[in-house]
């Protein structure tokens, strides 16, 4: 919880600290110690401190706050991304696409894998952004709904289109205009994610799974079905199964989905709601079938031939992880050049071949086929026309809806 430390101590507390530091002798007698710590700080100072520390309101103005751009003088980018989300060479020390970027532009990329969870990462950077401070990062990668929240709160900067010619030209149509960032003014996808149904052939033992209904209703799968703790994926997939559109639904529709899932929880059909750890449940056969992320499935299939996936006839959910430039970033132009670089087909193909998520770059197919023919033909990496037609996105939520829906979903998952 230390990330929620107050930005600065209130005057009372600060004064007490200063006193105890500068005037050690006087401060350190037993009486003054007691007065300063227990008596002083906790009653007088404490009350003042209680009222003093609030959380400041988010920046009202959309469009974010820019700092002076030091891109020209300091040839660096601080890039925060998720673990195992970039190409690495066999020695494990070099990242070929980033190295090529540095070679071409002379800009060093400080690449940190410090985003493990959207919620946690938001908790980490929110106090700095709310206080109008530099987070020390020039480029961060966040999933749609959090990217939408960052834009809504005015925590990220508008991108300069003139630095993004390839990105503008090559962005796949599927991702071009989400309702939370029309025309991609603030964000560009790093990779796309397909949410599908995965199964373990051995654990299924002949039972056929084709839809979310099968997961929720087939008594043979009781206690061996998994859903994701990511609300939009679990709700979205079920909503599609119920014939509603996740891009435009009402609160009643949402409640109906929750009720349907609740019934499955109550009768013990759903074993657990999981994060990324579903992969171990699935490979061990503890999950016979579950809602899963496409990129994981490609990698699991390489190790375990029993793992398979289905795209339900009702459709599947698509989301993206998006590159954003937080407020006060020192190297905005450099960051934009990096975004644009990953929209050139060669680096995009190299990246897609390595990490197996959906490439957001149109026209990458021939380049990917040169590196890895099977990857280029895998619809989980490059969705074909038929698959793209079934792709759906979750609509953006207002902050009120977000809280209310998350509450209901938390209740469904046990807390």
């Amino acid at each position: 919880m230390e990330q929620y430390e107050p930005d600065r101590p209130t005057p009372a507390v600060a004064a007490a600290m200063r006193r105890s530091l500068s005037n050690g002798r006087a401060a350190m007698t037993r009486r003054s110690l007691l007065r300063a710590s227990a008596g002083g700080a906790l009653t007088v100072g404490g009350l003042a401190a209680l009222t003093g520390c609030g959380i400041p309101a988010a920046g009202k103005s959309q469009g974010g706050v820019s700092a002076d751009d030091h891109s020209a003088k300091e040839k660096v980018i601080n890039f925060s991304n998720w673990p195992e989300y970039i190409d690495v060479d066999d020695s494990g020390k070099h990242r070929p696409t980033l190295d090529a970027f540095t070679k071409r532009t002379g800009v060093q990329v400080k690449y940190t894998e410090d985003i493990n969870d959207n919620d946690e990462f938001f908790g980490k950077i929110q106090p700095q952004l709310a206080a109008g401070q530099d987070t020390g990062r020039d480029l961060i990668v966040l999933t749609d709904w959090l990217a939408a929240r960052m834009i809504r709160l005015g925590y990220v900067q508008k991108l300069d289109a003139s630095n993004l010619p390839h990105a503008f030209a090559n962005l796949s149509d599927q991702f071009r205009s989400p309702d939370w960032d029309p025309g991609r003014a603030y964000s560009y996808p790093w990779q796309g994610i397909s949410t599908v149904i995965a199964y373990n052939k051995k654990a299924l033992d002949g039972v056929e799974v084709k839809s979310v209904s099968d997961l929720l209703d087939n008594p043979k799968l009781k206690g061996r079905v998994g859903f994701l703790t990511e609300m939009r994926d679990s709700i979205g997939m079920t909503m599609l199964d119920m014939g509603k559109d996740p891009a435009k639904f009402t609160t009643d529709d949402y409640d109906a989905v929750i009720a349907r899932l609740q019934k499955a929880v109550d009768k013990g059909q759903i074993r657990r709601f999981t994060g990324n750890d579903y992969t171990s449940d699935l490979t061990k056969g503890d999950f016979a079938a579950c809602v899963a992320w496409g990129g994981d499935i490609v990698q699991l299939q390489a190790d375990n031939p029993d793992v398979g996936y289905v795209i339900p006839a009702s459709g599947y959910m698509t989301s993206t992880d998006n590159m954003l430039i937080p407020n006060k970033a020192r190297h905005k132009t450099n960051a934009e050049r990096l975004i644009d670089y990953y929209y050139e087909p060669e680096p995009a193909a190299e990246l897609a071949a390595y990490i197996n998520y959906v490439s957001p770059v149109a026209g990458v197919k021939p380049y990917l086929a040169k590196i890895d023919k099977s990857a280029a033909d895998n619809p989980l990496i490059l969705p074909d026309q038929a698959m793209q037609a079934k792709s759906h996105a979750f609509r953006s939520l207002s902050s009120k809806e977000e809280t209310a829906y998350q509450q209901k979903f938390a209740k469904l998952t046990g807390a």
Partner: protein
Amino acid sequence: MAAVTEAPPLAPAPETKPPRKRGRLVPYWLLLPGILWLIVFFALPMIYQASTSVQTGSLEEGYKVTWHFATYWDALSEYWPQFLRSVAYAAAATVLCLLLGYPLAYLIAFRAGRWRNLIMVLVIAPFFTSFLIRTLAWKTILADSGPVVSTLHTLHVLDVTNWLGWTSGDRVLATPLAVVCGLTYNFLPFMILPLYTSLERIDGRLHEAAGDLYAKPWTTFRKVTFPLSMPGVVSGTLLTFIPAAGDYVNAELLGSTDTRMIGNVIQTQFLRILDYPTAAALSFILMAAILLMVTIYIRKSGTEDLV
């Protein structure tokens, strides 16, 4: 006795006065780093959390202190099942730890001989890997098609635990039993170490004396060993119970929707729902509840010094 008389008399020489004065302050100087640490990493965050718990607002509008104490009541009435569950699981894990840990600590202290150090290293060895990895390992051990579960099934143990409501169906994972087992496993060393230190201090001659007075081994244990190990029992149970009650990793990885503990609720409120006041209030309620239980426990157990 001789030592006392031989000690040199305290010479009230005038030149020793300034050093003595400085000497008086030394303890406080030594305290300074600790106190500063406590202020920065304990007192300030506590004040901040206390403040958060009585604020209202939203991320967009910011949070302001409105002395909204109703948050506490709302949080308690909404999440009391998870509170009760946390206490029950932590208590069960603590009892299990005591039952498993006491014989082992006894063995190390009195019977291990030259194996003592090796066994101690083995007790501490799990700490060399991360908490998360150790917990995840249990998912492999207890997998549905794994040897443990099939053995339990053949022996009809699962029928009994199903009947008790500790497990459901032919599985152990994603049930209360798995969560309690995970808690027991993860906190067992915290029970063994204090038990060992207090048992090891018992003078072996006391056992001989008890034998000389015709006490049977069981009576010796009941009347001599166990009472003397009470400080270890009390501190061991506290070191197990307190972190177990606030734990959320075991419930997250080994549990299911009906095994979520209060730690999970706080995490969800804080990170997912972004309801900071409720999360802070829940933390304080948990802290108060544990403080209360621990105070009563220490009073009842009647031990003054905890190892």
